[in-house]
């Protein structure tokens, strides 16, 4: 009965779907697969040890943490906020895009600004609200809800597609080691190169989509008039 070997996969799927603790899920899947796959206790321990040590590259982020926190301590977030402030004729949509470009570019260099809790809520949203007011409108609750959604979406999209450009990021290393276990040797830099066009397209698609969406929303919530004289 070969199908029993899939028990570990079933545990992973069901476990994540039930939102059990991720480490518990993988732990159970490891042990179950070891048993049903006939590895035996010693074989399982040896396979786990060998693979964990072979996957040490993914722990390189700990080396980078040596500077991450201290960069923040020395005003990295403030510098990023200042850069976004320089956007001309800022609207909420443009600010979201400016953040996306900055986030994507720095994401490729493995530099973050604190994400939704650390940057979007305390820095970006007040700026966006200010931009709506500057164009002569009183921000409605619905519009702010959409801006929150767009900002978080931009954060996710740019982070996902640009972090894979960093040579030594965990995504690329996971692909490299998975391929290596199947007998395909690939280099991290080549993996990262494949993603450059994909990441740029993702950024452009997201920016165009959110700019169009914000324009439409502005029209919907505040009427067709824009600019300083558009106050109702």
């Amino acid at each position, binding site marked *: 009965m070969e199908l029993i070997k899939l028990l570990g996969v079933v545990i*992973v799927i069901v476990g994540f779907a039930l*939102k059990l*603790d991720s480490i518990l899920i*993988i732990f159970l899947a490891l042990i179950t697969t070891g048993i049903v796959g006939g590895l035996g206790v010693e074989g399982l*321990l040896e396979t786990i040890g060998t693979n964990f040590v072979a996957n040490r590259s993914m722990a390189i982020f700990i080396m980078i943490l040596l*500077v991450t926190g*201290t960069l923040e301590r020395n005003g990295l977030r403030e510098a990023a906020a200042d850069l976004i402030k320089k956007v001309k004729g800022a609207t909420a949509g443009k600010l979201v895009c400016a953040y996306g470009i900055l986030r994507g570019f720095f994401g490729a260099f493995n530099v973050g600004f604190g994400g939704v809790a650390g940057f979007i809520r305390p820095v970006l949203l007040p700026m966006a609200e200010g931009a709506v007011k500057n164009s002569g409108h009183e921000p409605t609750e619905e519009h702010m809800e959409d801006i929150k959604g767009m900002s*978080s979406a931009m954060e996710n999209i740019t982070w996902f597609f640009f972090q894979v450009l960093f040579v030594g990021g*965990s995504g690329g290393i996971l692909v490299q080691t998975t391929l290596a276990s199947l007998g395909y040797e690939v280099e991290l830099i080549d993996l990262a190169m*494949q993603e450059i066009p994909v990441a740029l397209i993702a950024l452009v698609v997201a920016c165009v989509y959110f700019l169009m969406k914000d324009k439409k929303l502005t029209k919907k919530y505040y009427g067709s008039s824009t600019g300083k004289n558009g106050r109702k």
Partner: protein
Amino acid sequence: MSNLKFIQVSDAFNANGLNIVWIIVGLITIYAGIKNLLDEENPSRVGTAIFWCSFGVVCAFGSWLPAKVSGVLVIIMCLPPIFKKVKVGKTNAPTKEFSRAQYEKIGMKIFIPAFSVAVFSLAFAFFANISSMIAITFGVALAIVILMLYSAKENKPQVFLQDSERFLSIMGPLCMLPQLLGCLGGVFTAAGVGDVIADLVGKIVPKGNVTVGIIIFAVGMVLFTMIMGNAFAAITVMTVGIGAPFVLEYGANPVVIGMLALTCGYCGTLCTPMAANFNIVPVAILNMKDRWGVIKNQVVVAAIMLVVQIGFMIALK
């Protein structure tokens, strides 16, 4: 790439250098363990210390430990997080006023050390055959030196160590997830899980049509990721079970197929509430009324990107 690499180092340099890299990483982690063990504000001192220290030991000495011993240490490492015994202790986060003052002193020059890590790893990847991990270490060392030059009084050596412990604790045990998943992929392969999945899929889909194989691999990544909420968990199973037997075996380029499959999985992450950290937690942080408010803004982009990526994979196979 290899024809560009005019700086050649010996294999011994890479091997020794890598061992030093892992010892440094291991020592940082062991420091986090000991710091928390001595920290009376940490509600779970022993569990937290066991987790970080056993991880640090595998990391630092994995090259020399017998595989079985490393395996046992990995099992020990998993226990404290499973029993929720890894906690955050006293932190030394900088105040807003402090980092504002530092920004006024340093200004936009702060981006120079921020870039140095990636610039080093890129430069070395292009021009030398030095391991990326060693290049990253050089980049980190340079960034530390620059930060110390900017502000010697505030950025003392122990500040870097304390800040890295602070971030390690914020990330918590889940930061080991990719490594554990990589480990799981290896165990799946060793147990022959991939062959079983390949047999199953092969009963429905004929082998040999690489284009169909690519589409199934990509869409499978999206669906699998949506169910599990984690593209890293999906990529190991899917590559072993579908990517290799249905696509790579027929000579498709593993660099393109393997890498883009992961970002196809990200299209799934963008569309699922199972990826709570990305799609549900922000709803709470930003006080949004609509639980689906983040996902709704991502679906269109994810769909376009999936089509684009499948196109790329087919064109570049």
